[in-house]
Structures are given as structure tokens and as C-alpha cells.
């Protein structure tokens, strides 16, 4: 094998111009496939990234009020397709007033949260650990001029027995959600805080906002829930499950379906083109390799006379094909990267900031290399076997 390697290297270097031409020809087959694949992958990946990056695409919003008991939540929490579920008390949001310094905002939507909340996690906000912590939307924090680490006052008002009453509690602001996550003035609080607000408004005396003398002990159901599926593929089956229970569900099934349809169409287009190009390329490559083998028969004759076996010669051809494949792939990669860069620049104005049109992962590059080298080796070995397996040295000598 070492002799075959040495001979292959010397022969490759001797016919460098021919080998460079061959490499360019092979690169011209591989490069368009890499570019096409990068386009397919880039477009689909960007769509997937958009959907995955926004937890809202995994949210299932209930379209009406229901009587959701503990069994409903237990079932959902036990479902592997569910990433997060937390009860909501009423169809319209619970509202309260938030105050900091001299600024206040009335009618702030109070949203229940809990550990594992995908919205908070996706935007890097910490989840409130207890009833005295809160995460605010950016618009709300700006309005009342409060920053993380500061305290804001939660004020709840009610009318009880004809008298207007209010209760307030200091909450620690532990995080701010950016506008990309929430556009409205919202405060994310643990469920017990939300329940305390509701109960206080309903005339109870919860511990958090009152003296705890009359807590609400009769709640056995909730009107709604915040539900997030684990992955994009889990949205549709979960929605169907809820719809099967007679619920109205709003979700991103249509967008997810569109993305998957585009991915499927692009994949098919890619594979059909790849198959046609690969077939043509393999046949052309086979012809070229056979022709170069024909031109090198004098070399093989000389090697045969020196006692190199046809197996050794085939190993030499295979090693040269390996070098050719590596060189071709390197050239193709260079061409493809240049073309991808050009595409990304050309289409930059149509893309949102930070998004790219063509992209390839290291695993794609490795797979491409493996396929290119494997195909080249198979074609080269096929040609070498056809031409060298039954090498007729006397006949070659006659032609020398």
C-alpha cells in the first residue's frame, strides 16, 4: 500500500495539469449541488428558526371560556407533547395597576407564569420564584420607569358593600421582556399572585393583598390556560386533542404547515436535480477516468514488468482518485462559498437583519465530502477494474 501511495503521488504530480483539469470538471459538478443544497437548507432553516425562535408559534390559545378542572391540567402535564401549561382565571385578562415612583399604569394585564415558561425562557427573562416577584413587558417598564432589581407596587381596587377599596403590595421586578416577546403592557406573575388579585376583586380576603381572613377555598376550575407544545410537530396533534374535547383553538398550524410544504417541495426539487446532475456527472467522470487510464497504460505496463500486481495498480488508481476527489471538493467548496456569499449579499435587501439566504452546516460539508469521495472512489475503482483487472502485458508491449 505504501508503494501504491508513493507511486500514486508521483503519478498525480506528473500529470498535475490533467489532474487539475479533471478536478475542475468534477468541482463544476459538485459546486452547483452544494449551492443548491445551501439555498434549500438556508431558506428552510431560516423559516424553521423564525418559528422555533418565537415560542408563540408553539402556543395554543383557547378561543373561549371553559370549565377546566384539575384532571385537564394533569392530563396535559403528563403529555410529552406539552412543554408548558398554566391555568388562567378568566377569558378577559385580569387587570391591575402598577406603580413606581410617581408613575403608574392602570389596566395592566396580569399573566400567569410558572417555571419552564417558554416565553420567558426564550427571551432570557428569569421566572418569578414567589408571589412577590414579577417580570414586566418592556413597554410597561418604560411607562412606569422601573428597572430590574427595583420594586414596583401592585395596586388592586374593588368595590365591596358599596365602598371603594384598594390593596397594594410591593413586587420585586426580576426581569423585563423585550418588545419582540410582548407588545402590550403586561406583568407576568406566579399563579398564586394572579389568584389573589382575582379573589380580592371578588370580595375575598387573600393573604397577599389582605389579612387572609377569608381566602377563596371553593375554586375547582379555571376558564382558560396558557399552553405551549414541545415542538413544532406537536402543535397539530395537541390542537386536535383539544378540538376533540370541543374546544376552539387558535394556533400557528397553518404557518407550520406552509413551512413544511416549502421544505418538502425544495427537498424534492433538490433531489431531482441532484440525481440528474449526479448521474450525468458520474457517467462523464467515468468516461474521463477511462480515457486517462487508457493514456496511462504504458505506465501500467512498465509497472507490471517490475512486478507490481494489478491489485497494486488499482490501489494506485484509487489513491489518485482520492486525491482528485479531495482537490475537487476543495475547489467546489471554494466556488460554492463564494457563490453563497454572493447570494447572501445580492438578496440582503430582501432579508431581515441577521438572516442569511444560503447556509451550510459543518455536518453538511462532511457529508458532501463523504459522498464526493465515496462516489469518486467507486467510479475510479470501477474503471480501474474494467481496464486493469485482466491486464494483457504482451498486448501492451506490442502497442508500446
Amino acid at each position, binding site marked *: 500500500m505504501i508503494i501504491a501511495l508513493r507511486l500514486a503521488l508521483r503519478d498525480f504530480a506528473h500529470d498535475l495539469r490533467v489532474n487539475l483539469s479533471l478536478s475542475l470538471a468534477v468541482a463544476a459538478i459538485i459546486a452547483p449541488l452544494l449551492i443548491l443544497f445551501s439555498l434549500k437548507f438556508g431558506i428552510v432553516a431560516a423559516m424553521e428558526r423564525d418559528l422555533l425562535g418565537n415560542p408563540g408559534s408553539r402556543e395554543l390559545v383557547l378561543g373561549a371560556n371553559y370549565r377546566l378542572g384539575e384532571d385537564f391540567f394533569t392530563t396535559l402535564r403528563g403529555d410529552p407533547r406539552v412543554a408548558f401549561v398554566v391555568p388562567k382565571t378568566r377569558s378577559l385578562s385580569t387587570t391591575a395597576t402598577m406603580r413606581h415612583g410617581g408613575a403608574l399604569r392602570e389596566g395592566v394585564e396580569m399573566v400567569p407564569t410558572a417555571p419552564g415558561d417558554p416565553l420567558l425562557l426564550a427571551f432570557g427573562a428569569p421566572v418569578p420564584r414567589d408571589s412577590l416577584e414579577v417580570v414586566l413587558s418592556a413597554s410597561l417598564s418604560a411607562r412606569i420607569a422601573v428597572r430590574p432589581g427595583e420594586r414596583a407596587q401592585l395596586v388592586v381596587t374593588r368595590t365591596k358593600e358599596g365602598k371603594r377599596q384598594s390593596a397594594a403590595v410591593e413586587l420585586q421586578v426580576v426581569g423585563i421582556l423585550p418588545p419582540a416577546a410582548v407588545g402590550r403592557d403586561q406583568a407576568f406573575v406566579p399563579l398564586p399572585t394572579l389568584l389573589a388579585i382575582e379573589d380580592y376583586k371578588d370580595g375575598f380576603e387573600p393573604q397577599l393583598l389582605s389579612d387572609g381572613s377569608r381566602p377563596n377555598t371553593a375554586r375547582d376550575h379555571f376558564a382558560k390556560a396558557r399552553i405551549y407544545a414541545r415542538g413544532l410537530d406537536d402543535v397539530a396533534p395537541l390542537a386536535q386533542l383539544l378540538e376533540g374535547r370541543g374546544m376552539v383553538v387558535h394556533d400557528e398550524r397553518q404557518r407550520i404547515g406552509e413551512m413544511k410544504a416549502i421544505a418538502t417541495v425544495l427537498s424534492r426539487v433538490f433531489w431531482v436535480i441532484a440525481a440528474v446532475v449526479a448521474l450525468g456527472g458520474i457517467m462523464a467522470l467515468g468516461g474521463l477516468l477511462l480515457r486517462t487510464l487508457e493514456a496511462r497504460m*504504458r*505506465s501500467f505496463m*512498465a509497472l507490471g514488468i517490475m*512486478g507490481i500486481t*494489478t491489485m497494486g495498480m488499482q490501489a494506485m488508481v484509487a489513491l489518485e482518485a482520492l486525491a482528485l476527489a479531495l482537490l475537487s471538493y476543495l475547489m467546489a467548496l471554494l466556488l460554492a462559498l463564494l457563490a453563497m456569499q454572493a447570494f447572501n449579499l445580492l438578496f440582503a435587501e430582501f432579508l431581515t437583519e441577521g438572516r442569511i439566504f444560503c447556509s451550510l452546516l459543518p455536518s453538511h460539508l462532511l457529508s458532501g465530502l463523504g459522498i464526493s469521495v465515496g462516489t469518486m472512489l467507486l467510479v475510479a475503482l470501477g474503471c480501474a477494474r474494467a481496464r486493469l483487472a485482466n491486464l494483457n502485458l*504482451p498486448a501492451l*508491449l506490442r502497442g508500446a
Partner: protein
Amino acid sequence: MALLEVKGLVVSSGAGDTGHFEAQLDSLCLGEGELALLVGESGSGKSTLLECLGLLRDKGFASERFAFGGQGIAAGMGEAARARLRAGPVAYMPQSGGLPPFLTLGECLALRMGQARRLFPGFNEPRARDLVALAMREFDLHAGEGIALRDCLAKKPQALSVGQRQRGMFLCCLAADPKLLLLDEPTSALDPLNARAMFKTMAGMTRQGMAVLAVTHSREWAKNARVIAYDQEKSRQRSREGVTVGCFCEAAA
């Protein structure tokens, strides 16, 4: 013990314009240090016989006895076994085209030695180097104003003259320290001075114990050598419908 024993060897060539051709060698027994010449008119089958004796053929021949160093050689003995013998004890030098164009003459010599070292357990590398040096010295003595062969070691075959290539191929054969040297018209591209040097070198190799069989049209350079000659009468007698025979027998001393 004879190095090369041949009896009743028949080598068939494929169908050509004039039908099948058979080269026949009735008998040959070549021992260590012997020089024999295979002579005959062009197209009589000298090269065909030499290719078969040089183990380049794996089929298309039959014999009553064909052995090298006591080891029987038969059609279908396998490429690996023949290649092993070609790499070491049996060296064959074609008329032309025996040097790979991608290697320099020096690399060819190294490859040849490497092959012999790898495949031939009895290979004596110092002796092989001495043989190459001896032959090179002999050739360079006759180079006159021409380029010495030792200055060609770094050149690829295409940078050498036809005569230099022929002498280079001869050196390559010696680099394997063969026991049997088979040469196909080794002086065909050489001027008389160099042809004389080639025969002198061949004779020198026989003194080293090598058996040499050379196809040649130049018998005058080796008057004492044994001669295996084309026998026109026998060839005519043995030819038959669709088969032309070229028959070779040892000429009387």
C-alpha cells in the same frame, strides 16, 4: 541445477490478419552464468517466446516442461505468483517502454530494488547495487562525448534519448539482482559502440552467475554464446491450416 528448463513450449497468439500464430520452443536448458541468444527473422516469434519466458503471460501457452529454478510454470498459475518472480529472480527487459514516465531513472531503480526487497526473500541489495554500478561504469566508459548515464538518474524517461532509455531499462533489470535476465533486442536503439558495451556488460553479468537470454539480430557481439535459432524448415512443416508456426531450436555449437 538448471535455472530455466523448457521442453515443448507452445505459445499461441490471438487471431490476426493472417490467422493464428504459434511460437514454439522445442528445448532449452539454461544454467547459471550462461548466455544464450534467441535469433531469427522479424515476426518469427522471438518476442512472443521471450514474453512467455518472462512470465508476462498467464494463458495461451502449454509445455511438456517449463520450470524456473525447479518450480513449474503453467498457464493460470496466478498473477501474484508471476509478479513475485518478475519482481526478483526473473527480469524481463522489453525493447521499449519499460520505464514509467512519472518516475526518474533513479526512482525506477529504487522502485525495482524496493519490489525485489519486498517480494523476493533472497534479494541481495548490496550485490544489486554493485551490479548496477558495474553496468553503469561500463556504459559510461563508452559514452565518449555523450551524456554519462549517471547524469541521467534524475531525469524522467521522456528527457532521455532512446538509447539512454534502453540502457536505463537494463540497469533497472539489474537492480533486482535477477538470476535470469531476459532481454528483448537490448541493442536495437544503440550505436555500435554502445551495443558492444551492452554485450560486454551482459557477458559481465554471466560472470556474476546470471543466466542471460537475449533476443538479438547482432550475433557478432557474442560469438561464444549459445544460439536458439528460428528453424524455417520445421516451422513450415508444423504450420497448418489457419496456424502459422515459428519454431526455435538450439543450433549446434
